[in-house]
């Protein structure tokens, strides 16, 4: 007990109060830019408070004093050593056209695995329907898919569903968006089960898809099937696959697989990419929801199948081009070079 606590407090209190003021001001406005002198002063105050805490820990055990200084040093530490990336404002345009597709490409192996699992499920589902058509009740838990495909096609082409939809297209669209996003988030979240849940969910979705496709193809309704599924499925199915990709990334970070880094570090490295992917999925599902409610449910003769299929094919091609090329630095540079060349020729 060799510290004069009262004298110590009287001498140091003004510096602590100043540090508190600086921290409160910055916490209230995280985007406020500090001048060089302010940063220097903050660093000095932080180091002084740290030294005071070290003194208190060594020479005195006054608990309230220690708690106060620990809280103060903790706040300053988190501010000074915290990642500074968040002071850069979020730019949605740049994020969508550059960050999201490049993140997707960086983890294309996880996407390939996600696709492989769903395809395996689809093959299994299709095979099950071909071998045992009675399995339909188990493989397709949706009432409107239980009946005979040809009967449904005839009913849809009479426009029975269209009349019903006219009253509630917006509601149906909103329901689809939220439901599919919820499913995608679940596919991602199940990555925390070492990826087992993600794989199971992708597989079961594949099974349902394969079973429906096989059922309609067997009934000779391929045109209806493609015209019905492709316009929204061209975006919706890749969305679920990207959600699976994010879930598998999370699982890979959790498992490690001989990586030298500890689990916390592995997760820290992968989480921003996982968030980017799932946010991209949400955007894609908004589009898919609109298309499914306002376009997919209208069948021939209202909209010819050829138009619907062409629409779906174009969508899929655009999606592939977007994910494959959007935001590529070398493409941007080449385009800039070409434009510059044209401009200099025109002069």
């Amino acid at each position, binding site marked *: *007990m*060799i*510290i*004069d*606590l*009262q004298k110590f*407090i*009287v001498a140091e209190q003004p510096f602590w109060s100043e540090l508190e003021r600086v921290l409160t001001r910055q916490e209230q406005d995280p985007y406020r830019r500090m001048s060089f002198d302010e940063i220097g002063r903050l660093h000095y105050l932080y*180091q002084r408070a*740290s*030294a005071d805490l*070290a003194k208190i*820990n060594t020479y*005195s*055990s*006054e*608990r*309230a*004093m220690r*708690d*106060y*200084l*620990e*809280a*103060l*040093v*903790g706040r300053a*530490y*988190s*501010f000074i*050593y*915290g*990642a500074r*990336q*968040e002071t850069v404002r979020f730019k949605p345009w740049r994020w969508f056209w550059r960050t999201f597709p490049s993140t997707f490409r960086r983890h294309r192996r996880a996407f390939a695995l996600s696709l492989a699992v769903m395809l395996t499920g689809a093959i299994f589902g299709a095979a099950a329907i071909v071998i045992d058509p009675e399995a339909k009740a188990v493989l397709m838990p949706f009432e409107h898919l239980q009946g005979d495909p040809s009967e449904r096609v005839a009913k849809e082409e009479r426009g029975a569903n269209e009349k019903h939809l006219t*009253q*509630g*297209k*917006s*509601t149906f*669209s*909103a329901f689809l*968006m*939220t439901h599919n*996003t*919820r499913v995608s*988030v*679940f596919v991602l*979240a*199940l990555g*925390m*089960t070492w990826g087992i*849940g993600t794989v199971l969910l992708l597989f079961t979705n594949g099974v349902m898809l394969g079973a429906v496709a096989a059922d309609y193809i067997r009934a000779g309704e391929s045109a209806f099937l493609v015209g019905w599924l492709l316009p929204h499925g061209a975006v919706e199915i890749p969305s679920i696959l990207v959600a699976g990709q994010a879930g598998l990334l999370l699982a890979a970070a959790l498992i490690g697989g001989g990586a030298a880094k500890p689990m*916390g570090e592995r*997760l820290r490295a992968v*989480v*921003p990419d996982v*968030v980017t992917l*799932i*946010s991209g999925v949400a955007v894609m599902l908004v589009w898919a929801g609109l298309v499914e409610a306002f376009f997919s449910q209208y069948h021939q003769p209202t909209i010819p199948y050829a138009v619907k299929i062409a629409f779906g094919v174009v969508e899929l091609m655009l999606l592939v081009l977007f994910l494959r090329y959007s935001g590529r630095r070398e493409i941007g540079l080449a385009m800039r070079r070409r434009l510059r060349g044209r401009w200099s020729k025109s002069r």
Partner: protein
Amino acid sequence: MNPEAAFSARTHARTIRTPEGVRFSLPLAGPVSRCLAWLIDALCLVAFAQTIQVAAALLGIVSRDLSQAVTILLYFIFFLGYAMALEWYWNGQTIGKRILGLRVMDVRGLRLRPSQIIIRNLLRAVDSLPAVYLLGGVVCLASRYAQRLGDLAANTIVVRSTRVTAPRIDTVLADNRYNSLRAYPHLAARLRQQVTPIEADTALQALLRRDDLDPEGRVELFATMARHFKSKVVYPEEDLAGISDEQYVRDVVDLLFRR
């Protein structure tokens, strides 16, 4: 790891060592306080859901379809984004956490990044399995820093964050103008040597909180403390004559905390 070992590995605080070599600790929030905070947040969500319904009913006058669509979207956005938005704008706090003095922090004591907030809230989908956050609760009880799965993935912890103010030690010592124990510097030096930091702190805390104690308890407490300190260093009887036990303890604290 067996469950007992996992449980014993839990700590009540996250201690962080800064590059300056200073340690500070963040007291961790337990599952009960977190559950209460969640209940408060759930009540807020229900209240907001009611507001949405009223607004939707008004919109329904224009178009029933649009009103239902807006309701579905607003419910979804609000239920998913409530915690994310508040934890970002209030530095790791929601209404429930603010009321109960809890805060989400990075496990290394750093500021939260947006991706951490988003992922810890998205993973509620798996933490809430099979119902009422059972899986999250079990993981929280078993994990070292009381983290649910969302916290593990996001590298976050939930800490108790009551704003601590500087202690008013001057209220105890400023009025102690004459201290008879200072007349014997060699005994004062011995007292400083004999009294442990914990004993000194206990005496100081008793003086800081004297007004919170009931009179009988206060007399008894300071009598016990005075007896304890007198057993460590014996001062001449004539110097202690007329000094109450509380004043004696105050003099001892004055000697220990002031040079």
